[in-house]
C-alpha cells in the first residue's frame, strides 16, 4: 500500500562559490492520508529544504535536486522532482499546500485576509468576487476566527499572531488539498496559542482526512499530534520511527540528546537540562564518517572506530524503527537508561 507522499533518496544541493552545500542528503520519508509525520531537527538540518523541494519552491537555476517525491493522486502518481514545473505548480494549493513559520511576513501586507484566501480559491474554482469572499468567510469560520464576516476584510497586521496563523491555514486548505506541509507553524507563537493551533490542525486532519507533515525543532510540540517522527541531522535522516518508539526507545544519540533537552513538568526545579555540546556541522564540509560523531558521547563505545570512518546506513533495527548509528542493540539499551 503506497502512502500519499513517498519521498525517496531526495538530494538537494546548492552550488555556491565556497563549494556545494549538501542541504539534503539521501532523504526518504513517506506520509499517508490521515497521518501526521513530524520532521524534527535543528536549523540547518535540512528539514525545510527537503519539503520545499517536494513543493517545487526552490529556485531551479540555483538548486540541484535528485531523487523522487511521488504524490500518489487518485488519477495516477506524479513524481514531483522529475515533473515539469508547470505540472507541479498546478498541484500546489490544490493537492498539496504549505504553511510557514512567520505568518506576519508570509502574508502580503497590502491585501486583506479575505482577498488572499479568495485568490487561492479563485485559482482552482470558477466564481464571482463575492463567491470568493463567501468562501473565505467560510474558511475563517472553520479555523475558528470569530466574527469572520467582518474580519474577512481586515489586513494581516490587524490580526494577532495566532489568528494570522489560523488564517494561513484557512488559505492553505481552501481548495481541500490532501497534503499539508506545516513548516514550524507554532515557533513564532506563544505557548498557549501553540496548542490551540496544533489542536486545530488535528481537527482539520480528522475532518478532511489530510496527510500532514509537521516540521519543527520542538519535540514537545510533536508529542501531541504526530504519528510518526523523522529526526534529521546534518542534512540526513538519522532516525525514523513511531512517536512511541522515539520517545520511549530512541535509537540515536542525537535523538536522546534532544529528548534530554526538553524541559519536563515532572522534573524537579533543580533538574538541569542537558544540552548537546558542540555545533551542527557545516553542510559544505561534512565530517567524514558519521556527521554527529564530533558531538556524540557514545562514539567511543563503537570499538571498530567506524564512527569517524564511515557514514552509518539507515538501518531497520527492529519493526519499522530506522536509525543511522554504528552502535549495536546492546548499547542502545544503555541509551534508554540514560534517558531517564
Amino acid at each position, binding site marked *: 500500500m503506497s502512502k500519499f507522499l513517498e519521498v525517496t533518496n531526495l538530494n538537494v544541493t546548492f552550488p555556491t562559490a565556497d563549494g556545494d552545500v549538501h542541504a539534503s542528503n539521501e532523504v526518504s520519508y513517506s506520509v499517508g492520508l490521515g497521518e501526521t509525520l513530524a520532521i524534527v531537527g535543528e536549523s540547518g538540518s535540512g528539514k525545510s529544504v527537503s519539503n520545499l523541494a517536494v513543493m517545487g519552491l526552490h529556485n531551479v537555476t540555483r538548486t540541484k535536486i535528485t531523487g523522487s517525491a511521488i504524490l500518489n493522486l487518485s488519477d495516477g502518481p506524479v513524481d514531483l522532482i522529475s515533473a515539469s514545473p508547470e505540472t507541479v505548480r498546478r498541484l500546489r494549493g490544490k493537492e498539496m499546500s504549505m504553511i510557514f513559520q512567520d505568518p506576519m511576513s508570509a502574508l*502580503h*501586507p497590502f491585501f486583506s485576509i479575505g482577498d488572499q484566501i479568495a485568490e487561492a480559491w479563485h485559482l482552482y474554482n470558477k466564481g464571482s468576487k463575492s463567491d470568493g469572499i463567501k468562501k473565505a468567510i467560510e474558511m475563517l469560520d472553520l479555523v475558528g476566527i470569530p466574527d469572520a464576516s467582518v474580519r474577512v476584510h481586515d489586513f494581516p497586521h490587524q490580526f494577532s499572531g495566532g489568528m494570522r496563523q489560523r488564517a494561513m491555514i484557512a488559505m492553505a486548505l481552501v481548495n481541500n488539498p490532501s497534503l499539508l506541509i506545516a513548516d514550524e507553524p507554532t515557533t513564532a507563537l506563544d505557548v498557549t496559542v501553540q496548542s490551540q493551533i496544533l489542536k486545530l490542525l488535528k481537527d482539520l486532519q480528522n475532518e478532511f482526512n489530510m496527510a500532514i507533515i509537521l516540521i519543527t525543532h520542538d519535540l514537545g510540540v510533536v508529542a501531541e499530534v504526530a504519528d510518526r517522527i523523522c529526526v534529521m541531522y546534518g542534512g540526513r535522516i538519522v532516525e525514523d520511527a513511531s512517536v512511541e518508539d522515539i520517545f520511549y526507545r530512541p535509537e540515536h544519540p542525537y535523538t536522546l540528546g534532544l529528548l534530554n533537552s526538553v524541559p519536563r513538568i515532572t522534573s524537579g526545579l533543580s533538574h538541569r537540562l542537558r544540552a548537546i555540546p558542540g555545533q551542527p556541522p557545516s553542510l559544505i564540509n561534512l565530517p567524514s564518517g558519521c556527521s554527529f560523531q564530533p558531538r556524540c558521547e557514545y562514539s567511543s563505545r563503537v570499538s571498530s572506530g567506524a564512527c569517524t570512518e564511515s557514514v552509518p546506513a539507515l538501518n531497520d533495527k527492529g519493526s519499522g524503527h530506522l536509525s543511522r548509528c554504528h552502535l549495536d542493540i546492546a548499547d542502545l539499551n544503555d541509551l534508554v537508561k540514560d534517558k531517564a
Partner: protein
Amino acid sequence: MLTYVTRRLLYTILLLAIVSLTIFFIFDLIPVDPARLVCSKQCTPSLVEANRHRLGLDVSVFEQWWRFMVGLFAGRTFGEEGIAITCAAPALGYSFSRHECVTTIVSQAFPYTLSLALGAFVLWLSVGISLGVLSARKKGKFADRAASVFVLVGTSLPTFITGILVVLFIVLQFNLVSPLELGNWHNPVTEPLGWLQTFFFPCATLALAYAATYTRFTRSNVIETSSEDFIRTARAKGLSEKVILRKHTLRAALAPIVTIAGLDFAGLLGGAIITEGIFGLNGLGKLSIKAVTQTYDLPIIVATTLIASAFVLLMNLIVDIAYAFIDPRVRTS
C-alpha cells in the same frame, strides 16, 4: 481621514506663509540694491529713493510681506495717481521689469513647466519601471547588464550636457525644429503634433536622469521583494510567476516609488531651470532664474518660490494619502 487632511492643509498654509516671509527677509539681506540696478547713468540719490518707493522696497520687511498677503486675497494696486495699475486677486505682485501682473506672467509660464514635468514624468516612469523590472527578472543576464550601462550613463550625464548635445546634434542638425521655433507653445489638445515637436526632446532629456535612477531603484526593490516570505507563500498557493510578479511583487516593490515619484514630480512643477533654458521653454524655471540672478525682481522671486514650495508641500500631502491607500499598515495610525 477628513480631519487628517484638513489638519495637513492648514499646516501647509501656515508653512507657505512662513516661507513667503522668509523670502522677503532673505531678499532684504542680499547686498545688491534693486532700486539702483535699473537707475540710469545719471542717477542721483533722490532718484534711487524714488525708485525704491516705486518698487515697494522702502517699507519694512513685514510690511512688504503683509501687503503681499493682503494682495493674495484682495488684489493690489501699484503706482499712484493716474498711472496706477491694479492686479486682481490672487495678486502675486507686479513685475516692474516685465510690466505685468505676476499672476498673469506665472499663469503664462506654467503650461510650459507643466507640459515638461508631465511629459518627463510619464516617460521616466514607464521607462524606468519597465527597465527595472526587466533587469530584475533577467538579473545577471545580458538585459540586466545593458540596463546597468543605461543607468550609469543616465546618472552621470547632467542635463546641461545632454540637453546641449540633443539640441545641437539632434534637433538642429537634422532640422527637426527650426531654431527660431524652438520652445514655441502649441496646445496639446488642438495641436498635438506641434506640442510633441516642442516638448519631446526636452522631456526626454529631463527624463533620462530620472529614468536611470528609477531603473536602479525599481530593480533593487523588485529583487528584494521577490525574496520576501509572502512571495514564497504566493508561489506555494500555486499562482503563476506572471501573476506573482504583476500582482504581488510589483505592488509591494513599487509602493515606495509612489512617494519618490510624487516628490520628484512636484519638484519639477516649480520649473526645470536648465532644461527650460536650453530648449527655450518659457516656464517657471526660466522665469525664476533671471529674476534671481539678473533683475532681482522680487515679486517674481516670491511668486515662483512660493509656487514651487506649494507644489512640494501639497504633493507631500497627496503622496501621504496615496500611500495610505496602497499600504494598509499606514492607515490605522
